[in-house]
Each structure stands twice: as structure tokens, then as C-alpha cells.
């Protein structure tokens, strides 16, 4: 499987910390500086830029920003993007007032966004000699740096999605970030303490400062809760030339999800795409339910959980079918993109191949022969979660589209009125009034709730049926008791 979550990466970092702890070799300054810069970058990507909003929201985020701002003058900041004067001061190790004075004199190029100065980080002096760690190094610290670097990339690339996922739940983004930040600070503290312990003496000033900082920062964060939905943030790298059915499934799912997100992000999405998302969702659920059924044969029966998951999937299928029909009664008059249609066709083909030979349903033994069921369910689990996200986005669409007069239907199918008399006679399409589509709004809410429940149920069932295939390593470690 080519899917990695933030939780997987931190579990790997924990393993490397243990390896590091037992290593007697001194830490070269270059290796330390690579780690130092990467760890800071990850912390920045986790916390994100300063935010405003409600007072409570700004205060909770400011608490995390204070932790970041206390980092001993960072060796390097982010390589791209814009930062405010406060962060520039932090990066340059100078007072904020001095930085603002330099900006006003034009000595630091900046822009004014109406609230604050923004400085492009490429215009700031930085230590070009601090390079990323060598990924091929056999030493634990460079490997740890690379692991944290991948985590930083994952956060930077998927920040919008992670923010979206966490906000959609019942937790604030900051309360979800704090446990992850504390975990990273713990890793930083172990690495810094190790560097101080093994020397050389001439190079321990910086690790010592970072070790002291990380200990203080952990205390500043206080007693944070365990676990975080952020740990499930996943990075996918499907095979570019899929050959086996498993590879085709993974590749098909990822391409379709990406294309569907792009389509739904259009200012006015195509209703045909919305309908197809429902149709593909039904197909995905049907295949997941069938594979869950098949999974009960080769491994221990997982009993009620799998049966419950199948029930949730079938309930969500019914809700989606209803929503599909209702979206079919209106149109935004937008065409689906070729990219989406191609991705949808490929996914349809591979999902059909998983459970059917043409029109004939495959037997469970035949499915198991062609497919690694555990891996497929792990891929489907992510896709089903993505479908729940897509459906949640779709839930927001009817209201603005109706109020903007962007949903159309044949005048003959809508409430007759004097204004529509001519349109009815001419067989024209007219804008649907919000009062004329109450079912669409209700169905959108129902299907969003159903798909969320289906995703949760599948998560639970797959985690139980295939713990060794998909569970995060951290979970397994807690679950196993070492022999003493």
C-alpha cells in the first residue's frame, strides 16, 4: 500500500528515537542543523499561520503560536511563502520594531495587505549551508530528519484538507493540533538531549538551547488530550503504471477523488458530476460491503461490527440513490470536465472488475484469488472517507445555487405562474426558486449524515478485521504487552 498518514510518520519517528537513544556515536553539527531546521519547519506547518476570528478562536491559536515563537532563533524558515513582521523578527533574531522600521525604509521588500506587512521569505537572508538530511544515510538522526521532513511536506500539501476535516468534526483545529505538536516536541527533546549527551562538546550549544526550549514548550502546552484526528491525515502515492487489480483500484480511487474535488471546487459545479459522485459512492459502498463479506472467510469473523458496517453502507446507498434522483431533476447547465469523466470511467471499470466478471458476480474465493482483500479495504476505507467529505461539500451547494438562481429545471415541471407561461409553452428551462426544492436540501443533509456513519462504521470494521494491515503502528504498540 502506498498510503502514509501523519500518525505512521510519527510512529516511525518514535522508532528512530529509540534507535538514536542507543547510539553512542557523536552527532555531527551538519546532521544536527538539518534536524533542527526540519523540526522547526514541521512545527510551523502543524500550527499554520496566525489566525483571527472570534476572540476565543484567536486566543487558542495564539497559545500555539507562542510556543513556536519561543523556538531559539530558527536556522531556516520555510523556503517559500509570505510571513508577517513578527515571524520575520523571529527568523532574523531581531526586535519586531526594528524589522518594521527596516520594512518602512524599504530595506526589506514587503507588501501591505490592509492589516499587516507581508514579507516573501525568499527575500530574507537564510543559512544556505543548512541542507536537508541525506535520505540514504544509515544513521538514525538523518533518517529521523527525513521522516519529519516528509511529515512537514504532508502537512504543507494537505493543510487545507486537514483543516477542513477537523473543522467538520466537533473539535477545534487547535485542540487537534496541540497533541501532535506535543508529540513532535517530545521527539525534538529526545534528539536534542541525545546530541548534548554524545557531543562533541564544541557543538552542543545549539542542541542544548533546543533541548531547554522543548522541555519548556511541552510544559507550556500543558496536559493535552491523547490522539488527534490530524494523525489520520494521509498522503497517497498510487502507482503510476498500475498492473495488478489492487494497483488499479488504488490508482483509480485516488484519481477519481482528486478529479471529483477539483470539479466540486468549481464556482458552479456540474449537476451531472454531483449525480455521478452519488453513483460512484453507491458503487464504492457496494464493493466495500462485498469485500467485508469476503473478508469474514479468510480471517476470524469480526461478527457484529462487519454486519453493522454493511448495514450502514446499505443505508447510505439508499440515501445516495434518493439524492441522485433529486439532483437529476435540476441542472446548473455546466458540463463535466474530461478529466473527471475519464477518472469516473476508470473507477467504474475497476470497481466492477473487483466484484463482477462482466455481469456475473464473482464468488468469494474468486475475489480472494484476484485481490489482496485487506489492502483493498484499506484503500476503500480512505476513499469512503473521501466520499463523506465530498458529500459534505455537496450538502452546502443547494442553498447558494438556489438563491443565486443557478439551478434550472424545465418550466413545465415547476409551479405554473404567469411569468413562466411563455417559458412553459416554449419548453424552456427556468431558474428554480428555493421554495420549489425543499427535498433537495433535506436529501443533501440526509446523505451527508449517512455517508459519515458509513465511513465510521467501515473504519471500525476494517480496523478490527485487518489490524496488521492498516492500524497505525502506535496503536499496535499500545495494544501489545512486552514479555518481561
Amino acid at each position: 500500500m502506498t498510503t502514509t498518514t501523519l500518525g505512521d510518520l510519527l510512529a516511525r519517528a518514535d522508532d528512530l528515537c529509540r534507535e538514536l537513544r542507543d547510539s553512542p556515536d557523536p552527532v555531527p553539527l551538519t546532521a544536527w542543523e538539518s534536524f533542527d531546521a526540519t523540526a522547526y519547519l514541521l512545527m510551523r506547518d502543524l500550527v499554520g499561520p496566525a489566525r483571527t476570528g472570534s476572540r476565543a478562536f484567536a486566543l487558542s491559536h495564539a497559545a500555539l503560536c507562542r510556543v513556536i515563537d519561543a523556538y531559539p532563533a530558527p536556522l531556516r524558515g520555510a523556503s517559500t511563502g509570505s510571513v508577517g513582521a513578527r515571524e520575520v523578527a523571529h527568523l532574523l533574531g531581531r526586535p519586531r520594531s526594528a524589522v518594521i522600521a527596516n520594512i518602512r525604509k524599504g530595506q526589506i521588500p514587503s507588501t501591505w495587505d490592509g492589516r499587516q506587512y507581508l514579507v516573501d521569505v525568499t527575500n530574507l537572508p537564510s543559512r544556505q549551508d543548512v541542507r536537508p538530511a541525506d535520505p540514504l544515510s544509515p544513521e538514525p538522526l538523518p533518517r529521523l530528519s527525513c521522516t519529519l521532513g516528509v511529515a512537514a511536506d504532508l502537512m504543507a500539501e494537505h493543510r487545507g484538507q486537514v483543516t477542513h476535516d477537523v473543522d467538520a468534526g466537533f473539535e477545534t483545529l487547535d485542540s487537534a493540533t496541540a497533541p501532535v505538536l506535543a508529540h513532535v516536541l517530545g521527539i525534538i527533546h529526545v534528539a536534542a538531549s541525545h546530541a548534548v549527551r554524545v557531543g562533541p562538546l564544541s557543538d552542543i550549544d545549539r542542541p542544548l538551547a533546543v533541548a531547554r526550549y522543548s522541555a519548556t514548550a511541552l510544559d507550556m502546552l500543558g496536559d493535552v488530550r491523547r490522539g488527534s484526528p490530524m494523525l489520520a491525515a494521509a498522503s497517497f502515492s498510487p502507482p503510476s503504471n498500475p498492473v495488478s487489480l489492487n494497483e488499479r483500484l488504488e490508482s483509480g480511487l485516488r484519481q477519481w477523488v482528486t478529479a471529483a474535488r477539483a470539479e466540486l471546487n468549481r464556482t458552479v459545479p456540474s449537476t451531472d458530476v454531483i449525480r455521478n459522485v452519488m453513483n460512484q459512492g453507491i458503487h464504492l459502498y457496494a464493493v466495500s460491503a462485498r469485500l467485508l463479506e469476503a473478508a469474514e472467510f479468510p480471517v476470524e469473523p469480526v461478527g457484529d461490527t462487519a454486519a453493522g458496517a454493511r448495514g450502514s453502507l446499505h443505508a447510505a446507498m439508499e440515501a445516495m440513490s434518493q439524492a441522485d434522483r433529486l439532483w437529476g431533476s435540476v441542472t446548473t447547465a455546466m458540463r463535466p470536465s474530461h478529466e473527471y469523466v475519464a477518472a469516473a470511467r476508470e473507477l467504474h471499470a475497476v470497481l466492477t472488475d473487483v466484484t463482477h466478471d462482466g455481469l456475473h458476480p464473482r464468488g468469494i474465493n474468486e475475489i480472494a484469488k484476484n485481490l489482496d482483500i485487506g489492502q483493498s479495504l484499506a484503500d476503500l476505507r480512505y476513499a469512503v472517507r473521501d466520499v463523506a467529505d465530498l458529500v459534505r461539500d455537496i450538502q452546502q451547494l443547494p442553498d447558494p445555487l438556489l438563491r443565486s438562481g443557478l439551478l434550472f429545471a424545465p418550466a413545465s415541471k415547476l409551479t405554473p405562474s404567469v411569468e413562466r407561461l411563455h417559458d412553459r409553452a416554449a419548453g424552456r428551462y427556468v431558474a428554480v426558486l428555493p421554495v420549489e426544492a425543499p427535498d433537495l436540501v433535506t436529501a443533501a443533509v440526509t446523505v451527508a449524515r449517512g455517508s459519515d456513519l458509513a465511513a465510521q462504521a467501515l473504519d471500525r470494521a476494517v480496523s478490527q478485521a485487518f489490524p496488521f494491515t492498516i492500524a497505525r503502528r502506535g496503536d499496535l504498540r499500545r495494544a501489545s504487552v512486552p514479555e518481561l
Partner: protein
Amino acid sequence: MNTTNNCPQLLDLAAEHLTAAARHAEANACGDLTSPWHSLAGQIQLTAGGVSPVCDDEPVAPRPFGVQDHLNAALTVLDSIPSGLGPPDIGVWAWRVADLRSLVTAWAGQA
């Protein structure tokens, strides 16, 4: 015959045939959401939206051989639009219809 003026109508007619094919596919599923016919109906409907997102949903004259027959009819209509007079991507949509038709033909051979 002024083919330029007829082009949108031909696109609409092709989309109507595709919608009818999707309805037939849906009917073949007999209400079973796990049937391959149900997911195929979604693919045909998506293609119909690409050919013409606003088409009259009054059913065209039903054809005896269902899905395959309507896909054939849609393809014939699309192919009848002279080159250069239709949308520039009309060939791509025609290819997609032909792809769906070949899938249905393969399924028909199995039945």
C-alpha cells in the same frame, strides 16, 4: 438543411438518447443498487451531461433493444454532425459513447 443551426438540436438529441439508455440500464438493475447496470447508468448519464447538460428530458421514442440501441442511436447522431460544426471536443464525447457501447456489447455477449 442548415446544419449549423441544427447542431445544438443534434447534441440535445444525442443526449436524450443517452438519457434514455441510462434509464434502460437503471431498469435492468431492477432496483438493485449493487448491480453493474446501476453504476453503468451513472456513467451513461455523466456522458449525456457532457454532450448536452441541458437537454429535454421528455423520453425519445423507446427502442426495442434498450441500452445498446440508444447508445447506437446517440453515436449515429454525434457522428452525423459535420466536422467543424460541432463543439471541438465532440469527437471525445463520441469516443466515450463508443466505449460505453462496447462495454454493453461485451455484457450482452455474456448474458
